């Protein structure tokens, strides 16, 4: 993922600089972390002293917030700007947003542009609050100077500095025109002096401010990556390779394509770094021509090592692999599980499996690449312009045999037409860049829906074996074995794959790597004294399906499995699933939460705590100190959400129609470091004749801590809940002959309007540090629905998605 280290000279990135200049009456104020003299910045000819800028204020009173997070449906620019503007006391009407260009120099200034893990507000909140507050303090000081009064008697409000006693005031704009500001808040000495607002003083945080990106999305003016035009540009369409991964092009016959007017060239993409295997791009003057030519090209392939693979084979191999205990790596190890099972009165053993799904974003993957005057320009809507640049740098350095530092690469960010984890791979950029080299013109590469599906970065299939030991109606011991493809390998996670960061070490003393993004979620917040989770990496899967992150990553299957199984255990123990869960969500031990994120690594006494640090490693390089952890309160906050949702859904109090059941699930996705507490109850009616079912109602309660924009949080919860409904009901990606079987939305079916249930959302806002809201609710719907189906008709289906036929079969089994 590139070298993220920035040499620091004398100052740390935790310091703030508030500086303004007055140049011929056009002064501006900037504030941020001093990124300082990185060699990258120096090489790019920027000043040695480079502030890492959060916002820029100009004398006309306008403040522009520089947003490096991708806008892909969460209205994140508005949310981040709300936080800064609140502390800065700037008028909301004067706030503007922009998106910095990604380059080597700007990377040193703005930091890593990467939007992932529902982490934008969680990771930025404290830092940008302080940036805003530091700006306000500097402006009050300068404003007092302009007014000729004592700063101590002044306050800031609505872009003005006001003297309390007289009401005399000066606007921010006037201040910038008259005086120069040059103030440093050094860490840690000056930080105590940065006065953050108390929660009750917030004027923008907590308000449903209208999102700034919305109007342009109603009139066609919003610009996505696919809307880019460059002079002299041509188009590329991908020929679908024989297998998802590792096809080799043997020959290309372009005789038919050549007959198509406007066809320019069939470009065999130079492979490097395991990208673009078997890719051929048809380049033409127009996109329809490129699509036609792509179909007309006759490409012969060596289909590679995965040509015979299909989903059933993978699942069978997973089961076999799980029998090889030597190969396992333990992810959770508490108490003595084997002793717990030995002492149990009753044990329960179940197998669960889940199918692949994919992102299927409404905007197909696309990008436009230009090479001019020795500079490469990439135009794209992506989750990370930084990784896009770094990946292209690595590729071009390899295929053009150049030094990375000699490559000048710029990435222009656009709106992202759906991300969900699916816009953080960059094969398309590499392919477009190679086409540019081959045809000498800018190339706009657009996936057809078919080639987009064929080159999906899929959520791995999974196999789980679970065992519970029950005594006195209590869960005494629990084991979960998980086999799947570890997506992290593709990103170099783990010693075996080239890096010693991002991965976690197994807790069994075997010093094995574990890819937390493939296992997380199994480390639930229930108190189970003897608890073990073991994981196996099915490496073939990782490559064959290009396993990747998809909304909530491993939570998206592990919560289905854990919460379904918890229900099974509750029933086996003769307990009510609600009461059973609440008894274990007691906030004890590793489930208690910790007060802040500032523990030096290794200090906490148990591995749950240790894990907190490793979860967001890219933040740790210049990590932000000592703000309140989202884990505060621990499992007790989750129990609270569950009580709220159960009460509102009428658990145990409502009389339900025939063949109708309620089902419960809880989660603290995304990771133990960044939990968002959420509980959900599904009401489902099953047709016992066909096994088909409909979700009538979802009741969801979420405690995300501070809520920056309630309307946006509500939208995210609803959207993610329906994502969850979609993946339990109908989404299914399958592998056959090494390729994905589904090619368009008639075969791969996301939820449509007619299937949308009533959704009751309760946001339990609290004063705690804000956590992410874009994903967690998507995990609980699948298990809640599965549990509701069981409660409705006694059918336990241990596979996701749940097909009506599987419900019918489980009903027969239950009767037998």
């Amino acid at each position, binding site marked *: 993922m590139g070298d993220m280290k920035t040499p620091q000279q004398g100052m740390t990135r935790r310091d703030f600089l508030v500086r303004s200049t007055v140049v011929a009456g056009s002064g501006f104020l900037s504030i941020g972390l001093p990124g300082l003299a990185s060699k990258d910045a120096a090489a790019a000819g920027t000043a040695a002293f480079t502030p890492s800028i959060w916002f820029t204020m100009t004398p006309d009173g306008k403040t522009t917030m520089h947003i490096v997070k991708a806008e892909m449906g969460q209205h994140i620019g508005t949310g981040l700007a709300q936080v800064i503007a609140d502390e800065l006391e700037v008028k909301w009407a004067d706030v503007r947003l922009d998106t910095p260009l990604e380059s080597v120099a700007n990377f040193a200034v703005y930091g890593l542009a990467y939007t992932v893990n529902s982490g934008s507000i969680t990771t930025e909140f404290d830092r940008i609050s302080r940036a805003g507050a530091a700006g306000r303090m500097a402006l009050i000081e300068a404003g007092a100077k302009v007014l000729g009064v004592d700063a101590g008697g002044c306050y800031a409000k609505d872009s003005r500095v006001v003297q309390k006693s007289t009401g005399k005031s000066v606007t921010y704009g006037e201040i910038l025109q008259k005086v120069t500001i040059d103030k440093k808040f050094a860490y840690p000495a000056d930080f105590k002096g940065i006065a953050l607002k108390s929660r009750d003083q917030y004027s923008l945080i907590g308000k449903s401010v209208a999102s700034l990106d919305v109007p342009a999305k109603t009139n066609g003016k919003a*610009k996505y990556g696919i809307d880019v035009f460059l002079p002299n540009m041509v188009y590329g369409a991908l020929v679908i390779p024989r297998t998802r991964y590792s096809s080799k092009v043997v020959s290309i016959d372009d005789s038919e394509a050549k007959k198509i007017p406007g066809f320019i060239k069939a470009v065999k993409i130079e492979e490097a770094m395991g990208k673009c295997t078997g890719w051929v791009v048809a380049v033409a003057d127009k996109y329809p021509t490129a699509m036609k030519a792509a179909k007309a090209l006759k490409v012969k392939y060596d289909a590679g090592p995965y040509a015979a693979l299909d989903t059933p084979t993978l699942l069978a191999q997973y089961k076999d692999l799980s029998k090889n205990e030597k190969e396992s790596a333990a992810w959770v190890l508490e108490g003595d599980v084997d002793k717990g099972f030995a002492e149990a009165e009753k044990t329960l053993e179940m197998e669960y499996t889940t199918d692949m799904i994919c992102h299927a974003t409404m905007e197909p993957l696309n990008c436009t690449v230009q090479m001019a005057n020795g500079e490469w320009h990439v135009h794209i809507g992506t989750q990370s312009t930084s990784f896009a640049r770094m990946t292209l740098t690595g590729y071009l350095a390899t295929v053009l045999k150049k030094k990375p530092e000699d490559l000048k690469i710029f990435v222009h960010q656009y709106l992202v037409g759906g991300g969900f984890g699916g816009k953080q791979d960059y094969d398309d950029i590499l392919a477009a860049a190679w086409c540019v080299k081959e045809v000498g013109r800018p190339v706009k590469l657009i996936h057809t829906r078919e080639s987009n599906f064929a080159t999906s970065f899929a959520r791995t299939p999974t196999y789980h074996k679970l065992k519970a030991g029950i005594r006195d109606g209590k869960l005494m011991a629990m084991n979960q074995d998980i086999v799947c493809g570890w997506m992290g390998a593709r990103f170099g996670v783990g010693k075996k794959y080239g890096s010693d960061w991002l991965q976690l070490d197994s807790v069994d003393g075997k010093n094995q790597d574990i890819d937390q993004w493939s296992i997380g979620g199994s480390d639930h917040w229930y108190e189970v004294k003897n608890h073990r989770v073991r994981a196996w990496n099915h490496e073939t899967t990782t490559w064959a399906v290009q396993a990747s992150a998809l909304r909530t990553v491993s939570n998206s299957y592990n919560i289905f499995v854990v919460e379904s199984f918890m229900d099974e255990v509750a029933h086996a123990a003769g307990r009510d699933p609600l009461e059973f869960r609440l008894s274990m969500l007691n906030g004890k031990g590793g489930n208690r939460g910790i007060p802040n994120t500032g523990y030096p690594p290794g200090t906490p006494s148990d591995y749950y705590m240790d894990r907190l640090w490793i979860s967001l490693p890219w933040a740790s390089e210049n990590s932000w100190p000592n703000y309140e952890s989202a884990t505060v309160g621990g499992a007790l906050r989750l129990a609270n959400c569950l009580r709220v949702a159960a009460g509102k859904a009428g658990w145990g109090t409502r009389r339900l129609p025939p063949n109708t059941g309620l089902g419960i699930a809880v989660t603290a996705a995304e990771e133990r470091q960044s939990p968002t507490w959420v509980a959900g109850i599904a009401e489902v009616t099953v047709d016992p004749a066909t096994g088909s079912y409909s979700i009538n109602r979802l009741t969801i309660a979420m405690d995300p801590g501070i809520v920056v924009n309630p309307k946006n949080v509500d939208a995210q919860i609803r959207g993610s809940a329906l994502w969850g409904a979609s993946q339990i009901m109908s989404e299914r990606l399958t592998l056959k002959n090494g390729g994905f079987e589904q090619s368009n939305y008639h075969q791969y079916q996301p939820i449509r309007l007619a299937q949308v249930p009533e959704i009751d959302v309760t946001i339990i806002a609290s004063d705690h540090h804000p956590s992410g809201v874009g994903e967690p609710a998507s995990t609980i719907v699948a298990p809640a629905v599965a549990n509701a189906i069981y409660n409705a008709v006694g059918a336990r289906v241990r596979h996701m998605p749940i097909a009506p036929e599987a419900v019918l079969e489980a009903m027969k089994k239950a009767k037998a």
Partner: protein
Amino acid sequence: MPQLSINGQSYFTDSPPDSPLLWVIREDLRLTGTKFGCGGGYCGSCTVHINGLPVRSCQVKLGDVDSNAVITTIEGLDPSDAHPVQRAWIEHEVPQCGYCQSGQIMQAAALLAVNPNPTTEQIVQHMNGNLCRCATYSRMVTAIHRAAQLAKEA
């Protein structure tokens, strides 16, 4: 050279007659509000009005478009971008990523043009062909009811 009437203006294109209208609108004429989603008529992102009817422009061949046909895209729905559906969409903040929304708005506007008082069931039936991966669905239904109200107030 084929001539098209879009949003009250005449356009010429040198695209071959078998080109899907979608790509002519987007890439030749650069009216990029109309979006490519699937190319198979499954998602509705490319919905435009032809003579007032909502049509999947990825399924219409350029050569099949009558030169007298009145084509309206999201850019031409209202001269001030203030069609009741657009106003209701902003009021209820329907869009999330926004990519499918031009198609959703064009589909919804076509419904209100023939049925100024749609029931929720009619809305669901009319809109069910338009996919939204962010699942902004329930706000769309609310906003269409609101747009019906706004249209009457005008």
